[in-house]
């Protein structure tokens, strides 16, 4: 049995996603965001994190193809990308998923393409499938969408 890794899971629409715990620096309660006019639709806005300005990405647009409905108080995940920080708007934070390397499976073809592009692997535990997102790709998706 390989070493177990921890993932932080969260919801985007109906999908249960996760990123490796050590990529996450912070989880924030719903925040006031400053919109960035003329930015791609994946940019939810800018966030003042103790004096540092972070770009907040909302993957709903690129993953689900729909914008965020009003209300719903989305949570903010702060992730590391290299030395830079960026943030992700998610519908809800789930629990911590522990998985050993054998439980990390290649992304099945049945997952919609928009998700597959950002997914590094899936974790199947019982009936639950968790998509492990690649932080690099997620950040890039925000940039190119």
């Amino acid at each position, binding site marked *: 049995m390989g070493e177990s890794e921890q993932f932080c899971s969260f919801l985007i629409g109906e999908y249960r996603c996760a990123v490796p715990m050590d990529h996450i620096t912070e989880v924030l309660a719903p925040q006031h965001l*400053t919109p*960035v006019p*003329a930015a791609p639709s994946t940019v939810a*806005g800018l966030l*003042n994190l103790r*004096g540092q*300005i972070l770009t907040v990405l909302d993957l709903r647009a690129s993953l689900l193809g729909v914008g965020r409905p009003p209300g719903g108080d989305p949570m903010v995940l702060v992730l590391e990308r290299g030395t*830079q920080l960026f943030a992700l708007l998610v519908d809800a934070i789930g629990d911590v998923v522990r998985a050993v390397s054998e439980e990390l499976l290649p992304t099945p073809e049945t997952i919609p393409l928009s998700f597959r592009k950002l997914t590094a692997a899936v974790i199947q535990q019982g009936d639950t499938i968790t998509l492990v997102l690649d932080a690099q790709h997620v950040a890039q998706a925000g940039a190119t969408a």
Partner: protein
Amino acid sequence: MARDDLGDELREFLIESYENLDRTEQDLVGLDLRADHTEVVAATFRTLHSIKGACGFFDFDHLAQLAHEGESLLGVLRDAGHPMNDAIVQLLLDLLDGLRRYFAIIEVQGDDGNSVEAELCDALMLMRQALEAGNGVPPTPRHSGVSEVQLAPNIVVFAPAGEATPAEKDPVPAHVNLLDQAIRVDVELLDHLVNLVGELVLVRNRTLQIDGVIQDPSFDALAQRLNLITTQLQERVMQTRMQPMESLFSKLPRLVRDLARSLGKQVVLATAGGDTELDRGILEALRDPLVHLLRNAVDHGIELAEDRLNAGKEPVGHIEILARHEGGSVMITIADDGAGIDPSVIADRALRLGLVTAESLGSLSARERSDLIFLPGFSTSEEVTSVSGRGVGMDVVRTNIEQVSGTIEINSQKGAGTTIVLRIPLTLAIIPSLMLLVAGQRFALPQLNVVELLRLERESMADELAFVGESLFLRRDSQLLPVVDLSALLGLRASRVLSQLQLLTIVVVQLSGRQFGLIVDRVVDTQEIVVKPLDDFIGSIGLYSGATILGDGDVAMILDVAGIASRAALVLDESSIPEREETNEEVAEEETVLLIDGGSVGLVAVPVFEIERIEEVDASTIAYLGGVPVMQYREMVAEIVTIGSLLGGVNDLPAAGSVRMLIPSFGATDRVVAIREIIDITTIGGRVTGSTIIGGKIVRVISLAEMLVTRSGAGHG
């Protein structure tokens, strides 16, 4: 001679030499006698060599003599590869002390005094001779408890450790030297410090905002104190990053000389204002553009000597670079007396390179033809030479300048020369800017780009604005300036039918000599903002140069005027249609003022940029607090002063009817100015203060900022 009187170069020389000596001393002291000492000897040699070199420059003969003897000895040590011994090390340490004694004298009196370190020089010489004579065998160090060795009558040379130097010579200068007063700081550490001060500025801004709400005298005092200290700290920290232009200028004469020689030209470069200081980051960004402009001036500007003679000029070409502070920014002028730029040559070239079409050329003014030089891909060089045609054009220069929020302007007269004016902010970390409200969102606009603020009421719109098809233009001086609706450009709101709006607020901005207007909803106030970098891909949108954190913790985007101009390029390119022939350059110096009937004090003009808005209130709503007239304005109670009372006249506040209030634009919203009637919006030449004549009548031109601030005294800052 006071320390401050030492020239910068001498100061630098001393600091560097002290550092080198300290390092050499450590090396020597730590020298293992059996270990390889070549590196230490080589390093010590270099130190002495550079000291000797500088001596020639500063005219320090005595110091030079000592350094020379030391250098000679080290030369022998180095070349012959002698093993070190105690005696040599000690002698070298004595040499360092001798050098330090000279530096101490220099630091105090500016020259190297009149004493010769004769004994030390002799000792160095004797040692060298001994080494040379010994054919690789070093002289035997004379230990055995002998404290002084007589090599010549009455000359003390060296001795084993400790008692080497005669007692009257203190080996270490007693007073604190320059090195103890100056330290070298890691630039990264300094940058971090600047960031922290930036944070503090934000905390200050926020505190002051809260102070406006909380009516507590002790908190007020605390907030003011925080304000004061933060401002001072900010200034000082910024100062640490400041570098004089000289550090850039000093490299240029060599460049010009080499270039002129390779082109067979005679060029003299003069620089002035080298002590003008700039943030080191900006200075760094200026390096390449300045070198490029200078190369251009030598290569394309200055003619060959015979051509100059034929043109009736002296054979030697002159280039002058001048730096000076002007209104919170630095102006750098690069002027040459060369051939100048021929607009038609530029235009032909641009046409041949396919950068413009013949039709669009037709509509361009001479100035705009010259500006074609900034087009990407433009080059006047037919061939690629070692000097030009390296693929870096004026477009890159302009981009570099605009990246540090600067502007570039070219004024050229064919046959007479070219003058290029760069306008650069002092620092990028904290900049004064205008806070704008556009479709409910706040944006910061760097003040460096702002030319003026205009408020157009429905009645005056027809006079001030012109529609060309769908596009809106502002009539300014001799030109029609394009006007862009910022909310539409940012995609915040669909284009509005502007002619139906009651009121238009237009910010006229400039960018490298081009001006255009931005329609905003409101100008909130002016603020010193701390610029925070943006994520790469937010930056790549191109409309924002950064973001800042406002007093309430919210983030505001900082608008990038260059980016906005290029986004609005469709509008702007068909723009700047000269309405009349250009008159002269002085036009830009005009100021738009509001002409007011001041009642008992006569006609008064107030610069429009000082007025944020004009409110009309009914006299019956004016309340009196302790006899002081006040009104409710934006959830604040503002004191009403009349323009008459400001000017020492009567307080002529009417008891009934409607009263117009000027709301000042500089943030002092706790005071508004009541006026009787607005007569006109007009322009006056330059920044006139005092009196001027408009339409045959004498008008007093006043600065609201000055009057309200003086009047408020120790009140709100």
